[in-house]
């Protein structure tokens, strides 16, 4: 059996390792358009801030591919998949035949279609090459504008401050981390950003970037403001990499459609990771959840199934961990659940900057925001992920001093 995997990051590698465990004799080929050995994308913002060094981004040992007996085709882009002929065509013109194919091609940054978005001082941060360009092109001590106040935008903005830049953060919604945290937690974060000297502009969108002699000069906003800046970083979300799949009818704007076994409409083609549209674990509705833990879990399910197992992926539970200068936020599930029988429990300790918000629906935990003290987050996510009726637990998580001892001791 010849397995081919397009993409060699979280989902692709998890699948390959699972495949190797299930099928010790099978041939496994990994195709990646990245010329580098596998590295951690989430670490790029830490690389930017200096919290991680370049030698720390590599995910695997130098002899990883030989050790697992994977054939790695790094720096080769897949440009076409022939589902009927069971072949993948590479940019170099080479053709890789497969028996079973996994598409783990990931996602690319979304760049707003505004004038000037192709200037030299305009950046995104998704690949190591992006980081190299940004690291070299960053106006040390100058002004930088970050568009998009999601996890990447916030982390990057904080990194720029560390490097002596004056940072403006632009967000379309009314607060930072929209759809991830609500009111009070957002206020805490706004206060912290202010303290670090990051200027936040909410409820506005970028209109265009003006240049002078080919260099970025300012960023025009929809509210009429014009931010003088020497560089602009767009952290406005990602979009699935499915352009090379147009001929297979698998490409879709919201991600590749898969069943619970991570199988696409073509029985021999599976998909996992940021290129996939998965199902929200709590609502059961289609959702695009491009997060690392989901990619690994989907990759493992896809890998096992490709080797002949019958495993199901229950759905993705959105969860994010944001750590800025030791200021930690963990959030997940549904921030604003809809429907009847809702209950919210909030606790705020301004003295120790701790915040806890739990959202319940029908007596089950569906939403979580923790600020400051985040150590028990995994316990809440277990309760949430398994949809345990909270009333039947040994200890009620709504209680003010909920801790592992109450649950198990």
């Amino acid at each position, binding site marked *: 059996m010849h397995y081919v995997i397009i993409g060699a990051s979280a989902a692709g590698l998890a699948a390959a390792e699972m495949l190797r465990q299930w099928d010790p004799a099978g041939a496994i080929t990994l195709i990646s358009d990245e010329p580098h050995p596998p590295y951690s994308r989430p670490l790029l913002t830490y690389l930017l801030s200096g919290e991680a060094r370049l030698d720390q981004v590599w995910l695997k040992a130098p002899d990883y591919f030989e050790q697992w007996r994977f054939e790695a085709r790094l720096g080769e882009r897949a440009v076409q998949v022939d589902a009927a002929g069971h072949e993948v065509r590479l940019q170099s013109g080479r053709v890789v035949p497969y028996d079973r194919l996994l598409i783990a091609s990931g996602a690319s940054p979304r760049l707003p279609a505004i004038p000037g978005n192709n200037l030299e001082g305009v950046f995104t941060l998704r690949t190591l090459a992006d980081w190299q360009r940004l690291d070299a092109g960053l106006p040390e001590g100058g002004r930088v504008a970050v568009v998009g106040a999601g996890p990447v935008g916030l982390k990057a903005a904080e990194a720029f401050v560390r490097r002596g830049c004056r940072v403006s953060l632009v967000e379309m919604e009314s607060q930072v981390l929209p759809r991830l945290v609500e009111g009070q937690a957002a206020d805490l974060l706004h206060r912290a950003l202010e303290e670090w000297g990051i200027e936040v502009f909410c409820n506005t969108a970028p209109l265009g970037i003006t240049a002078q002699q080919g260099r970025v000069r300012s960023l025009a906003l929809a509210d009429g403001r014009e931010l003088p800046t020497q560089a602009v970083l767009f952290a406005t979300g990602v979009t699935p990499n499915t352009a090379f799949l147009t001929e297979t009818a698998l490409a879709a704007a919201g991600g590749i459609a898969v069943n619970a076994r991570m199988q696409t409409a073509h029985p021999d083609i599976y998909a996992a990771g940021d290129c996939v549209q998965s199902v929200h674990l709590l609502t059961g509705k289609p959702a695009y959840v491009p997060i690392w*833990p989901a990619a690994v879990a989907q990759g493992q399910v896809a890998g096992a199934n490709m080797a002949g197992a019958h495993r199901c992926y229950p759905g993705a539970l959105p*969860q994010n961990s944001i750590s800025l200068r*030791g200021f930690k936020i963990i959030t997940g599930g549904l921030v604003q659940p809809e429907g009847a029988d809702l209950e919210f429990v909030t606790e705020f300790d301004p003295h120790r900057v701790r915040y806890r918000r739990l959202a319940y629906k029908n007596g089950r935990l569906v939403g979580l925001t923790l600020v400051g003290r985040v150590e028990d987050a995994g316990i809440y996510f277990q309760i949430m992920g398994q949809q345990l009726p909270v009333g039947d637990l040994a200890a009620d998580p709504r209680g003010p001093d909920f801790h592992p*001892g109450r649950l198990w001791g």
Partner: protein
Amino acid sequence: MKTVIVQPERCVGCLQCRLACAVEHSRTMELAAAIREQVIPRARLRIYPGRQHLAFPNKCRHCEPAPCQQVCIAGAISRRPQGAVDIDPERCINCAMCAMACPFGVLTYAPVHLAPEKRAVALKCDQCPEREAAGRSPACVEACKVGALTYGEWQETQQDKGRALAQAVFASMQAPQETASSLPATIRVWRQLS
């Protein structure tokens, strides 16, 4: 794999394990010197007040597969050949992804002398690698005076516990029979009837 086995019903919450753990993970590994170190050493297990027991020691279970290892974006979490799951403070970036994944809530974030330049790193039980290499028990086990923390193969402990339970059940079944003869005849007959 040999692990630290927790028997919460025996724990009295004396916290000697925490002290021993912190000393073991200090730079000097001496109590008197450890309390004066620049980076205050921290314990990697916590004792919570229990619900049915006096106290509940909570520590890393070294899960297989380990959810924390699967989500670590820095590749800082690995499994040692002997089986314990370990965090490399050099690689840890304090992102708290592991806290998000750990179903037992065993992680803490604090500075550590092995990476003094970092604000904090993820800390959890590493099962004392130096002691493991030397064939000794982890520091917390050595410090535990009531047998709430023991070191061994969990299958064996489970077997022992099962055997002890079976013996207790048999003992309790035998006990009433011995006293049966001393019961008044009326009660004995009534019991036979029912």
